[in-house]
C-alpha cells in the first residue's frame, strides 16, 4: 500500500495553486495545439519545453503532460465538427463523429468523444499506478545487456508492427541514430561525424528535429493540400451532456475492450493511431449496430476515442519505468527529464519519488480538468479553427522558430529546423515514418552506451545478449516483433484459409 501513500503525496503536490494554474494553462494550450493543423502533441510540447527550464521539474512536467492531454482532447473537436482530424489518432473519430454533427448531433458526438477519452485515460492511469512501480522494481536489476535488449525490443516493434514499409522504417530509424551520434562521443570524449563544422560540436538536438519534422513538415503538407475549413456549428449545453452520459453506460463492453486495446498498443510503441483504428474495426465487427457504423453511430465515436486516449496515456508507462518512451510525445517529455537533470528509468521511482508521483497524480487530475475545460469551451476552440490558414500558418511558423531558437539560444538551430522541415515533408510524402527517427535521436546515446558497455563486459562477443534467461527472452520478443509480418504470413499460409490480402490491413 506504499503506492497509495505515495500517490496521496503526489496529489498534495499537484493541488498547490501554482501547479493547478499550470494545469489549466497546459490543458488550454494543449487543446489549441490539438485543434490547429501543423501543431501536434509532440512539437507543441517541444516548442513549449524551453519555457519550463526555470520551473521546478515537477511543475514543468505537470504543465507539459497537461499540454499532451489537451492535445489528445483537441483532436476530437476538429474531427467531429470539421471532418479534419487534428491529430492522426483522431482519424477514426471522423468516421462516425462527423456524420453525427451533420445530423445536428454535434453536442452528443463531442460529449461522447470527450467522456470516452476521459474513461480511456483514467483506465490507463490506474494501470500505470498499479503496474509502473512493479516494472520499475523489476527493471532495477537490469544490466547494460538487458537495457540494450529493451531498446532493441522497442525499435523492432516499430519495424515489424508499423504500417510503413519495414526497410523505410529501418532507414529512418538508423538515420535518427546516426544524427544522435554526431558530436562529442560521451564514452571516449572524442569528436565524431562533425567534419570540422563547429556548429555540430553539440550534435543535433532532438527538440529542433521534432519542431522541424512535425511542425514545419506538417505546415508544408497542409499548404500542398490546400485545406479550407468548413465546420458545423458547435453547441454543447448541460442537457445534451446529461442525456449523453445517461446513454453511454450502455456501451461499457465496447469501452472496456477499447481501454484494453489502447493500453496494450500504447505500451508497445505502436501508439495511439493504430489503437484507435483497431478498436473501431473490432467494435464495428462485434457490435449489433455494426452495419450502421460510418453513418453516425455513437458507439463508433466511443471505441476509437477511448482507445486513443488509453494508448496515449499508457505510452508514458515504459517511459517512466524503463526510460523507453512509447510515442514521440513521450520521447519529448523524456528529453525534458534529461534537460531538468533527471535520469529517466527505474531509478526515478527510488530517487525522485515526489516527481514521479506528482506526475501520476497530475494525470488523474489533469484529465478531469481537461474534461471540464473542453466541455465548457468547445465554441471558443471551434472559433480558433475558423481563423484562416493564411493568418494562423505564419503565426505557427513564428512559434516554431521561437521554440527552436530557445532550445540553445542559437540561430543556427532555427536554420536546422527549416532543413528538418523540408526533409520531414519529403519523407512523409515518400512514406518514411518520422516517429522512430525521433525516438532514435532521443535514445541514440543511451542505446549506444548500453550496447558498448555490454560488449565491453563480454570482450566483444554478441553472445552476451543471450547469456541469461531474462536478456534472451527480451531479445527473442524483439526478434518476434521484427519478423512479425513474416510470421503472420507464414501462419495464415499454414492454415491455408485466409486470403493474403487481409494481412497488413490494420
Amino acid at each position, binding site marked *: 500500500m506504499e503506492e497509495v501513500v505515495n500517490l496521496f503525496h503526489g496529489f498534495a503536490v499537484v493541488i498547490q495553486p501554482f501547479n493547478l494554474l499550470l494545469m489549466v494553462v497546459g490543458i488550454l494550450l494543449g487543446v489549441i495545439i490539438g485543434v490547429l493543423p501543423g501543431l501536434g502533441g509532440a512539437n507543441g510540447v517541444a516548442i513549449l519545453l524551453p519555457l519550463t527550464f526555470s520551473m521546478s521539474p515537477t511543475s514543468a512536467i505537470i504543465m507539459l503532460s497537461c499540454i499532451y492531454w489537451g492535445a489528445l482532447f483537441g483532436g476530437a473537436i476538429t474531427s467531429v465538427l470539421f471532418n479534419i482530424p487534428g491529430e492522426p489518432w483522431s482519424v477514426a473519430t471522423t468516421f462516425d463523429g462527423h456524420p453525427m454533427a451533420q445530423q445536428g448531433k454535434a453536442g452528443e458526438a463531442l460529449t461522447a468523444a470527450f467522456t470516452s477519452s476521459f474513461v480511456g485515460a483514467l483506465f490507463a492511469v490506474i494501470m500505470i499506478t498499479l503496474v509502473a512501480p512493479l516494472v520499475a522494481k523489476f527493471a532495477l536489476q537490469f544490466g547494460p545487456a538487458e537495457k540494450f535488449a529493451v531498446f532493441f525490443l522497442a525499435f523492432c516493434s516499430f519495424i515489424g508492427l508499423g504500417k510503413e514499409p519495414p526497410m523505410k522504417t529501418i*532507414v529512418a530509424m*538508423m538515420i535518427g541514430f546516426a544524427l544522435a551520434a554526431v558530436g562529442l562521443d560521451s564514452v571516449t570524449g572524442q569528436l*565524431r561525424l562533425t567534419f570540422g563544422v563547429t556548429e555540430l560540436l553539440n550534435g543535433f538536438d532532438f527538440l529542433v528535429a521534432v519542431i522541424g519534422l512535425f511542425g514545419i513538415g506538417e505546415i508544408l503538407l497542409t499548404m500542398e493540400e490546400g485545406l479550407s475549413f468548413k465546420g458545423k456549428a458547435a453547441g454543447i449545453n448541460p442537457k445534451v451532456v446529461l442525456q449523453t452520459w445517461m446513454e453511454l453506460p450502455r456501451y461499457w463492453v465496447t469501452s472496456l475492450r477499447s481501454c484494453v486495446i489502447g493500453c496494450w498498443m500504447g505500451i508497445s510503441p505502436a501508439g495511439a493511431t493504430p489503437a484507435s483504428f483497431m478498436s473501431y474495426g473490432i467494435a464495428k465487427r462485434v457490435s449489433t449496430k455494426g452495419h450502421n457504423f460510418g453513418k453516425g453511430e455513437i458507439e463508433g465515436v466511443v471505441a476509437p476515442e477511448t482507445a486513443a486516449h488509453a494508448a496515449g496515456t499508457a505510452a508514458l508507462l515504459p517511459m517512466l519505468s524503463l526510460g523507453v518512451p512509447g510515442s514521440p510525445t513521450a520521447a519529448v517529455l523524456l528529453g525534458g527529464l534529461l534537460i531538468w537533470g533527471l535520469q529517466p528509468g527505474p531509478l526515478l521511482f527510488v530517487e525522485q519519488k515526489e516527481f514521479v508521483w506528482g506526475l501520476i497524480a497530475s494525470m488523474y487530475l489533469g484529465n478531469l480538468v481537461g474534461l471540464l475545460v473542453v466541455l465548457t469551451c468547445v465554441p471558443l476552440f471551434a472559433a480558433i479553427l475558423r481563423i484562416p490558414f493564411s493568418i494562423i500558418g505564419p503565426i505557427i511558423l513564428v512559434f516554431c522558430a*521561437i521554440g527552436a*531558437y530557445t532550445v540553445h539560444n542559437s540561430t543556427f538551430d*532555427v536554420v536546422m529546423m527549416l532543413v528538418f522541415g523540408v526533409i520531414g515533408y519529403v519523407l512523409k510524402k515518400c512514406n518514411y515514418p518520422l516517429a522512430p527517427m525521433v525516438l532514435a535521436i532521443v535514445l541514440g546515446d543511451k542505446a*549506444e552506451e548500453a550496447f558498448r558497455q555490454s560488449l565491453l563486459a563480454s570482450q566483444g562477443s554478441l553472445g552476451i545478449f543471450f547469456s541469461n534467461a531474462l536478456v534472451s527472452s527480451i531479445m527473442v520478443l524483439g526478434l518476434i516483433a521484427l519478423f512479425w509480418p513474416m510470421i503472420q504470413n507464414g501462419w495464415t499460409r499454414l492454415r491455408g484459409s485466409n486470403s493474403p490480402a487481409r494481412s497488413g490491413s490494420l
Partner: protein
Amino acid sequence: MSEGTQHSGGTGPSHRAVEIGTAAAMIALGLIVIAGSWQVGIGWGAEGPKSGFFPFYLGIIIVGASLFNLIQASLERDLPVLFAEWAQLRQVLAVIIPTAVYVGAIPWIGIYIASLALIALFMVWLGGYRITYSLMVSAGVVIATYLTFEKWFLVPLPKGPLEELLGL
C-alpha cells in the same frame, strides 16, 4: 494522401523519381556516416569499442536498406503517378522561400521585426488581406510574444538594431 495527387490531371514530378532520389540521398548520407566513422576508428581500442564502432554499422545498414528501397522504387508498379502537382509544389515553395529568408534574417534584424514582416507578408500575399489590417494583426502577435517571453517567462529572444534603438 495519394488521392490528392491523382485528380484534375495536372503535371508534376513523378513519384518514382522523388522516391529514387530520396533513396539515393539516403545512400549518400550513409556513406558520409561510414566515412566519418572510419576517421575516428571503427575497431577496438584500449578502452573498448572506438567512437566510430557503432555509427559505422549504422552507416552500413542505412546504405543496405536504402539500396533495397531504391530497387523497390524502380520496380514497383502501383506507385502514385505524381509526387505532387506543380501548382501544389508552388504553394509549398511559397512557404519555404519566405521562411528561409525569415530564418536567414533573424540574426541580423532580430526575431520580432522578422516575424512582423513574415506574418504580414503571408496575410497580404496568400490571404489577400489589406496591408493595414495585416500589419495590425502581426504587430499584435509580435507584441504579445514579446510580453510573454521577455516579461513573463524571462526568456530573451534575438533582437536587432531597432530594439536596441528603442532600448528594449
